[in-house]
């Protein structure tokens, strides 16, 4: 990460603008056990209370790290009930990194966030249809499969 991803200009700009970056040693006595760290690099997006919203393990190139972090920000907003902000985060991810590894999960949680924000279940079916069209083999297409029945 230090050799390739963290020196990337886009990564520096995104992280400094959107997140509080915190680095701890893998064997940090106070926190490594709390977050069950077994391998490095482990990257975790935490909400403002320190609760985990998303985790990745292993190397990520710049064009995969940024959407992974956007996904974490969106999930933190989702879990905090800030559905409008979650939708905006997922839209940013899907606009900038539509074919990234994080995209299928973002489509799923965008649909769920939209449903929670509007009470319109059609958003769930639209999420399924998008996943089925663009990422039919993803686990998120499988998780959304029941939504195909929504009228």
């Amino acid at each position, binding site marked *: 990460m230090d050799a390739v991803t963290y020196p990337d200009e886009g990564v520096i700009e995104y992280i400094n603008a959107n997140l509080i970056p915190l*680095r*701890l040693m893998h064997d940090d006595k106070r926190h490594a056990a709390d977050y069950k760290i077994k391998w490095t690099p482990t*990257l975790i997006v935490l909400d403002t209370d320190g609760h985990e919203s998303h985790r990745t393990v292993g190397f990520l190139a710049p064009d995969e790290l940024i959407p992974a972090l956007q996904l974490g920000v969106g999930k933190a907003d989702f879990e905090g009930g800030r559905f409008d902000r979650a939708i905006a985060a997922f839209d940013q991810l899907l606009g900038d990194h539509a074919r990234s590894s994080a995209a299928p999960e973002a489509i799923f949680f965008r649909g769920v966030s939209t449903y929670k924000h509007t009470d319109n279940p059609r958003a769930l079916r639209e999420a399924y249809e998008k996943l089925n069209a663009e990422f039919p083999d993803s686990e998120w297409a499988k998780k959304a499969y029941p939504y195909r029945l929504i009228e």
Partner: protein
Amino acid sequence: MATKIEWETEMDKALSRAKSEGKEILLDFYNPG
């Protein structure tokens, strides 16, 4: 524009900034060896 990521190294400081700035935290557990 900053030329590197401006890492915090203490959880308490990061949490304090997260609350005051309304941002999530990127926590990187790393092994420099």
